[in-house]
Each structure stands twice: as C-alpha cells, then as structure tokens.
C-alpha cells in the first residue's frame, strides 16, 4: 500500500464518498464478514425498508433475517461466493417487520478490506417490477384463454370466418374454411389465397375487394361463385371488414362468408314462379277483357237489331188502328191494341235487360256515399213526377256508407220506386228509410205500408222478370229487384225481404 500523503488523502476522500453512498443509497446494503457470515454493517435504507433497528441486524446471518431460506441455502450461497466472488439472486421473498411481503433482487460481492475479505450484499426492491411481471403473465394467460375461447367459438359456427393480412395471406381461418379448402389451418396460414387452387376470374374479384378494404378502410360485401373440394360450384356471400388501427391504417381484414346456394336456388324458383304467375294473370285479364268486349258487342247488337222489328210491329198496328179502323170490328181492334201493348212491353223488357247487363259490367268507383241524401233526392223527384199523391217519407239522417254512388242510386231508385208503386192504392202512404243493427252487422232498410206480398213466394222475388203481382195490379217488368240484388252483391252485401199481405213490405240489405 502506498503511504504517501496524496494517497492517504485520496483514500480519505474515497472513504467519505463511499460512506455517503452507503448512507444515502436507496437500495439495501449489508456488509458481512466472510469468515463468520455475520452482518457487520447495515445501511439506513435497509433499516427503513425492513423496519428493524440496527441492533437487530448486527451479528446475524442472512437466513436469520429471512433473506435466505435456511442454513443450508446459506451454505450453498456462500460456497458459490467463495468460488465466483459473486452471486446473484434474481428474486427472493422477504418480509419486513410489518409483515409486508416484498420481492427483492440480491447481489453479493466479495472484496478485500484491510486484508480481510468482506461480503457486500446489495438488496434491491423489485416488488413492483415483480408485481408488474406477474400481472403481465396473468394478462397473457387471460388473453390466451380468450383467444382459445374465441377460436373455438368461430370454429363452431357454420359460416366461414377468416383473417387476411396486407399481403392477402391467411392469418386465421375457422373450421368451415378448412372444410371448404380441404386443408388444415396450419396449411392455410401464411398462404396467399390466390395460391390456393382457385379459378382466376373469381380470384380477381376477391383480390380487388380485399385491396379495396385495405385502401379505403371500409367494408366490402359481395357474392360469388366458388368451387368446393369436390369441384361443385356453389353460391357464396361474403363480407370483408377492416380492422382499423389507431393511426387509421388497416393492417388486418376480417371477414365471413356463407354458402347461399340453396337460397339462390329458392330465389330463382320464386322469381320464375312470379313470372309465370304474372303471365297467367295477364292472360286471364286479356281473356276477361275479350269476354267483356264480346258482351258489349252483343248488347249493342241487341239494342239496334231487336228494336227495329218491334217498332214495325207497333207502328203498323197503330197505323191499322188509325187508318183502317172502319174495316175492323171491335174484336179486331182489341187484338191490334194488344199487339201494340205487347210490343211496348217487350221494348221495356229489352231496355231493362240491357241496363242490367251494363250494370254488371261497369266498373265500381268506391267513395263515401250519403244514402240519406240520395233517398231525399229520389223522394223529391218521385213527388214532382206525381204531385197529386201524398206520401209521408221518414228518412234517417247521415246514413253514410262506402260504395259506388251511381249504383247505389239505382238500387235505391228501384227500392223506393217499388215502395212508391205498391203504396199507390193507400190513402195514407208511408215510406221509411234508415239503418239498424242486426247482431254484428249494420242493415239498411226501405219499408212501406203498401200492398205487401206473401212471404211464401219470397224466394221468387229476386228472379229475373219474376213478379208476385199482375201487371194490372201494379205495372212493372219484374226486373227492379234483380237489379238491386246485383248491385248489393257487387258491394259484397246481402239483401232480404219481409212482408205481410196488406201490411206493406220491408227490404233489408247489408253492404
């Protein structure tokens, strides 16, 4: 050793520095005697750290303060120290006075001091690091667990799910994808999908779609044909979704695909069915139109052709009566006047028939119809036509229905006309119009106190040209009620009649 004044001064400075380090270090430092293995010095941090006073430490061995497990371990540690003059324990448990547990890193060095060997133990608290590492491991395990759960989930669904990277290589594929390619996941990972057996035109579309997702960051949906391992081509729909990172780039695309061959087939069948149906409807409509046209032509023909001879019959009969009366006896004149009457009657029948047929063919124009108003108008007209008659009308207000106004007017005209006609022999004629509830249905009625009819023949009421009275009693062709019935039926309703001979009649109808 150099005993020059400089070296002594250096030494003294060195000592002071060392001492300061020793005192102020934020790690625990223990000094041990190499021979006895006992602690000879302890720094303040250790005292603070472990919570014991200085006296506690001095003279104890490491295992006595809990740093090593026992004497055996202590012996082993020292043996290593002897050999290497260095030993490091990455992670030792240590408990302080309060029972708080720490993890510490311990590094021991041997060096010589005053010709004696000394052990210096540096103790570093790595609890937080330890805890962090522990937490990290826990998290990793958790992530691993979730990843496995997720993959299992994906594999259990029948849709195909997969992940692509920017080079369009498979990163993940579920079981359904494996089935599709007839390859295991390990064979698929890392392969660019285009390398797997593919028809080129299909590859192009999918490649374009994928690239679009990577570039635009937006999902892309599509449908495509695709062969499976047997070569059968099926229809698939797919969707590629971008996984957008925080900086806005897309590193990964996840997607799913589903076979829709069956669905496509069904759609095609339905479409074809609809086409056929529409065709059939068009055909049927055309047929109906044609039938209607034929009917129209028929009616037109009737209106011309039947009337002309009738006119001749009537005309010349009258001519005979007027110009040659003196050549005819009473019977002859009688016969001729009957001929006239008959032809007039026939003309009326033709007229009625034509109107009835026109009615059945015409289009319905549904609207809101105030039947009370219609009845009032018709009543007024009838009164004007025969001002000498006194008829008492009782008309319920605001009877409003949905229907074709024109047709309803005709129906009401017929019903009211009948009531008017059949009350003509009454001094105090009364006609009532209104509505009532019959169970769930609303019925509208026209009632009169006229001649009435025998209910036994009620079913004949609605026959074409059927009458329950003679023309002498009451004029008419017997077509009025048929017309009404047809109109009511076209409105989806039903008509019925009630009467007693001599006590009037009532007609009830629904719409």
């Amino acid at each position, binding site marked *: 050793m150099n005993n020059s004044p400089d070296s002594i001064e250096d030494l003294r400075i060195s000592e002071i520095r060392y001492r300061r380090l020793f005192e102020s270090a934020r790690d625990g430092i223990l000094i041990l005697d190499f021979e006895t293995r006992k602690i000879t010095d302890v720094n303040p941090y250790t005292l603070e750290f472990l919570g014991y006073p200085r006296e506690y430490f001095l003279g104890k061995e490491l295992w006595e303060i809990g740093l090593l497990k026992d004497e055996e371990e202590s012996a082993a540690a020292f043996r290593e120290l002897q050999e290497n003059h260095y030993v490091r324990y990455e992670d030792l448990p240590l408990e302080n006075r309060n029972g708080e547990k720490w993890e510490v890193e311990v590094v021991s060095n041997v060096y010589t001091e005053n010709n004696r060997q000394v052990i210096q133990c540096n103790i570093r608290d790595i609890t937080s690091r330890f805890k962090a590492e522990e937490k990290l491991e826990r998290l990793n395990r958790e992530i691993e667990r979730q990843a496995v759960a997720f993959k299992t989930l994906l594999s259990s669904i029948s849709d195909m799910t997969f992940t692509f990277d920017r080079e369009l290589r498979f990163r993940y594929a579920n079981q359904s994808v494996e089935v599709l390619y007839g390859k295991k996941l390990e064979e698929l990972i890392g392969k660019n999908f285009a390398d797997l057996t593919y028809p080129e035109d299909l590859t192009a579309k999918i490649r374009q779609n994928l690239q679009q997702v990577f570039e635009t960051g937006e999902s892309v949906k599509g449908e495509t044909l695709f062969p499976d391992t047997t070569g059968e081509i099926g229809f698939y729909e797919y969707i590629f979704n971008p996984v957008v990172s925080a900086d806005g780039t897309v590193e990964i695309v996840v997607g799913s695909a589903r076979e829709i061959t069956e669905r496509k087939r069904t759609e095609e069948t339905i479409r074809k069915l609809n086409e056929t149906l529409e065709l059939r409807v068009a055909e049927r409509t055309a047929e109906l139109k044609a039938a209607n046209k034929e009917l129209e032509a028929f009616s037109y023909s009737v*209106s011309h052709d039947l009337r002309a001879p009738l*006119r001749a019959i009537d*005309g*010349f009969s009258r*001519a005979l009566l007027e110009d040659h009366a003196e050549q005819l006896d009473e019977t002859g004149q009688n016969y001729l006047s009957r001929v006239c009457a008959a032809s007039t009657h026939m003309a009326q029948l033709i007229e009625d028939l034509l109107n009835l047929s026109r009615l059945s063919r015409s289009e319905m124009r549904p609207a809101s119809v105030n039947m009370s108003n219609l009845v009032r108008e018709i009543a007024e007209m009838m009164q004007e036509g025969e001002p000498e008659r006194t008829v008492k009308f009782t008309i319920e207000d605001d009877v409003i229905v949905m229907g074709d106004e024109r047709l309803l007017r005709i129906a009401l005209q017929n019903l009211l006309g009948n009531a008017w006609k059949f009350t003509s022999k009454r001094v105090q004629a009364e006609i009532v119009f209104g509505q009532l509830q019959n169970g769930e249905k609303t019925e509208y009625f026209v009632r009169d106190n006229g001649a009435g009819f025998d209910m036994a023949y009620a079913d004949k009421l609605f026959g074409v040209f059927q009458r329950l009275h003679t023309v002498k009693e009451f004029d008419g062709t017997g077509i009025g009620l048929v017309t009404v019935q047809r109109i009511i039926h076209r409105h989806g309703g039903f008509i019925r009649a009630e009467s007693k001979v001599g006590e009037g009649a009532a007609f009830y109808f629904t719409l």
Partner: protein
Amino acid sequence: METKLILLVEDNADDELLMLRALKKNHILNRVVVARDGVEALDYLFSTGIYEGKDAEPLPQLILLDLKLPKLNGLEVLKRMRADQRTKYIPVVVLTSSTEEQDIISSYDLGANGFVQKPVDFNEFVEAAHQLGVYWLGVNRAVYPK
C-alpha cells in the same frame, strides 16, 4: 224559292214507311227523297253515281240520317258531307235505334245537328217527327253557299 226538300237516308223499309206516315200525319208536306244506303245518299247530294248526268237535284233543307246503313254507314256519310263546301251546312238529324253514348258522341263530333232515338212506340215517333218538322223546317234558318 226552292222547295223545302227532306232527304231521308234509311235502309229499313218498315222504318221508311213509318217515317213517311209520321211526317204526313204532322202535315209536313215537303217532298221527301229516300236514299236506301250511304252511297245513294252521297250520289244524290253530289250528283254522282246513279244521279250522274241528270239535272242537278236540289239540295235538301233537312237530312234525316240513319246510322246503320249498308255499304257506307251513317257516320261516314256525315263525314263526307261535312267535308264538302256544298253540303257543309245542311242540317242533319241522326235518327237511329241506338242509345249507345258513343254513337251520340261520334255523331256530334262529326257535325250532326241533332240526335233523335227512334222510339218503338209509334205515337212517340210521330211526336218526334212533329217536333223535327216544326224546328228544322220552320224555325231554323239554313244556308246554301254557292
């Protein structure tokens, strides 16, 4: 002064007879020329066909025109009449059995002056003829462009 002449265009012999009788009953004593189909009617008016070469016939004061005629139908006759300057203004009353609204519309469209339905009842027929006569031969003022 021109004789007030009536041209009756009617193919049905019965109707023709009845009409003439009706006119007579109403003391309408004008001369009545009868054409049995559309072609004959036009021939008369324009001095063509069967009327060619003969002295020009006077134009009628009133034309009673049936619609259903053989060869050329009533509407056709009306159309051609209205297309010619000479016959453009002659009053035409369409007299027909038909009540089809389309016929009525077409008749007015083509320039008919009136539309009367031939009734079955002869008395009505006579009354119709009376009213026709009163108006078209009496009250109404006709014009014959040269």
